[in-house]
């Protein structure tokens, strides 16, 4: 097991380096940070000095090496635009994004599960068809459109929910949360729904197809033959066996939720990391862009590592293979 973790960690480092390199190559094409840093009166000479000072004229490999060394030391630098350490900024913005992502994941899971089960058990009923149609909309409508429609309906026309922001937040040390205030809850409803919609569809369809498959297996037939009640068969046996892939997918999708939050955060002006990233792109704020990309890559790497480890714990067959070595 320890050997596995070490091996996986090596691979993770390679992945992170590749992400860093890709991110870094991309920055060459986003534009000139200096043009975004100064006003129109700044002389051309001062602009040039600034470029030299920021190391923008250094050879790319040198810039990359410097970036990797700094990043490895946890030094992301100071945001060009905001003038504050990037690590601090990310720490401040992270709670908003994580809260939104987790709530969206929970919402998707809680709603999608019963929908999936129902449509598997009663595939012919009209409600199942409605579920499937709705889920088709969820998977085909772009996030920003859902978001804007929700804002229009519940924010502007009905006036029930706030159209932007996070509401009142309460802070505990390094963490801020909007989940302890009414305005915070009101604010998170629409963004979480918007963000969770795609996942909801995915999970519902997954549960449905898994469940349909499981319902045809022998042990369900035997369970019925034993005269067990329908509920015991459906939920005690069938659903339980459906859940393993569902949980895996949900876990893996969490990384997606955090990364995809960018669009939802932009539409709802949700003050998370994604919004900051988008704004950083507009102003070529390289320290923020690079730190964000590295962080997101790390989320994915860690989640995948955890999932891998869990597989080994859950599935004895994998354990045997590992102990033999490759």
């Amino acid at each position, binding site marked *: 097991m320890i050997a596995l973790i070490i091996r996986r960690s090596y691979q993770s480092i390679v992945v992170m380096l590749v992400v860093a390199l890709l991110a870094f190559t991309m920055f060459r094409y986003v534009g000139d940070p200096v043009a*975004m840093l100064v*006003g129109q009166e700044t002389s*051309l000479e001062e602009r040039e000095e600034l470029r030299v000072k920021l190391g923008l004229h250094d050879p790319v490999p040198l810039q990359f090496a410097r970036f990797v060394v700094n990043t490895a030391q946890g030094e992301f630098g100071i945001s060009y635009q*905001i003038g504050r350490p990037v690590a601090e900024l990310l720490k401040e913005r992270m709670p908003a994004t994580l809260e939104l992502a987790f709530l969206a994941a929970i919402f998707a899971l809680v709603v999608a599960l019963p929908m999936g089960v129902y449509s598997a058990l009663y595939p012919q009923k009209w409600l199942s068809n409605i579920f499937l149609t709705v889920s088709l909309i969820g998977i085909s409508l772009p996030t920003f459109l859902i978001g804007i429609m929700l804002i229009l309906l519940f924010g502007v026309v009905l006036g029930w929910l706030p159209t932007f922001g996070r509401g009142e937040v309460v802070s505990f040390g390094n963490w801020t949360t909007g989940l302890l205030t009414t*305005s915070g809850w009101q604010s998170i409803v629409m963004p979480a729904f918007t963000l969770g919609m795609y996942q909801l569809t995915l999970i519902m369809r997954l549960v449905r197809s898994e469940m349909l498959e499981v319902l045809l297996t022998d042990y369900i037939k035997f369970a019925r033959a034993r005269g067990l009640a329908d509920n015991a068969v459906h939920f005690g046996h069938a659903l339980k066996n459906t859940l393993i892939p569902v949980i895996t997918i949900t876990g893996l999708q969490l990384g997606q939720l955090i990364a995809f939050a960018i669009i939802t955060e932009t539409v709802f002006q949700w003050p998370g990391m994604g*919004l900051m990233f988008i704004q950083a792109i507009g102003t070529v704020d390289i320290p923020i862009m690079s730190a964000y990309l590295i962080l997101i890559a790390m989320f994915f790497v860690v989640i995948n590592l955890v999932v891998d480890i869990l597989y080994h714990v859950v599935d004895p067959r994998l354990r045997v293979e590992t102990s033999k070595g490759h």
Partner: protein
Amino acid sequence: MKLRTLVLGAAGLALAAAVAVPAQAKELKFAFQGTLNSFDPYNLNETFHLGTQGNVYEGLIRRGSDMAIEPALATSWEVLKPTQWRFHLRKGVKFHNGNAFNADDVIFSATRVRAEGSDLRTRISADTKVVKIDDYTVDFITTKPNPILHFEWGTWYILDKEWAEKNNAVSPQNVGGTEENYATRHANGTGPFKLVSHESGVKTVFAANGSWWDNANKEHNLTSVIFTPIASDATRVAALLSGQVDMAYPIPVQDQKRVDSNASTTAMVGPEMRTIFLGMDQHSDELLHSSVKGKNPFKDKRVRAAFFHAVNIKAIQKKVMRGNSEPSSLMIAPGLTSLSATHFKRLDFDPAKSKSLLAAAGYGSGFEVGMDCPNDRYVNDEAICTAIVGMLAKVGIKVNLLAQPKAKYFPKILAPNLDVSFYLLGWTPGSLDSWNVLHNLHGCPNLVDGGPIWKKEDRNKISRGKFNIGGYCNPEVDKLTARILSETDKGNRNTMIEKAWGMTIDDIAHIPLHQQALSWGTGKRVKSLAQRPDNQFAWRHVMMN
């Protein structure tokens, strides 16, 4: 678990009720498209930053809602001789932390604004001496006469020397540095509002300053102000329509009708000072992006005139800007000059004439040219460019448009790259004076009079004409511009300005399009506010219901 959530939720409710604002409080909530980054007033020479900081900090002078110069931290000033100005400072003014304001703060601020890392170094030229005469008198000694010395000082804010020294904020934030400057998130001004908290990109909170020196004549009734950046246009408009913000800007021109027809919101449209214009490369021997090889068609005035005649400015005003623009014949908003808006005439929209001019210049069958355009900088910038592409096509010019975000656009067209043949740009003179436009956009971009224009090795050293991307050069205009800078007689100066404008217009140095309009939206809680033509939002003019 559920119970705990409920209990916590209830606690949150109680907390929210406890901190609820009393009914008589006048809280202004407003949203703007961009974020407020650093609060250091010397960090970025940009309208929104300086405008917002101007509610907390003040300069020696300030601009009224009609842009007129008013005394602020200086009560009066006199010109002892053309190169020596004396400013008498206001007595009894306190910074927000209680420190007294005096001449030392002015001298400190004059040093800091010219220090490394400051983006406002042009506010006071490097060779200007700032001399303390006594605690409330300061002299500014310049090497050359400068009749508009104080024109930009409405946004040169005075910092407290003791406060800056105590908090290690003596110089502005160093870009590329490793430590945060104290002034990035803290402020200590003398203005009508105090900075309470500043979270860039999230929320900035201000409170009214009860001990502001001008409270006796104050025009506002606010107790606090909350600023939220809302980048997405649709979300910003929705926030205004739903009453969650009391004021939002800019409102996209296509949403103005909706904001105005809504019972609880009003669209406020007013003239802005920014002039949008087209520029042409007139200095290269061959255009970088064109089908014409071996020569540069823009060197021929007839071609420039043909382009001008091809532009249907009425159509742009009506269709692209939906009425929110003022077609202009001048490269500066006429209100900033002594000239009337009709003093100079635009070349008429006349495609037939345009074609014949092109034919006379030897381009009867037209030619191809590349055009650069920003798509996130000015109101409907890309749409204007697209319209112009169509208009030029009608006279046989094929324009290949490249519209891109400002982060890509500016580095491409500005020196040292100058990778451009034909472009759209906007300009507002920081000093609100013609000299700025003549110098930056019309001055010959060379180091010595008569020297080569935009010489490759010298590009980063150019200061005259640094935004004269097309390389327009008329030595007579340069001479006049230099005299305008130091002429102290107002009447003479205005005559010279008129003459200089006449020359550049006659040369067709650029093709001015229009002054774009300001577009703000207010909610019903706002009783009145002043919409300044420089697009700065001064809260000291806001009355709430």
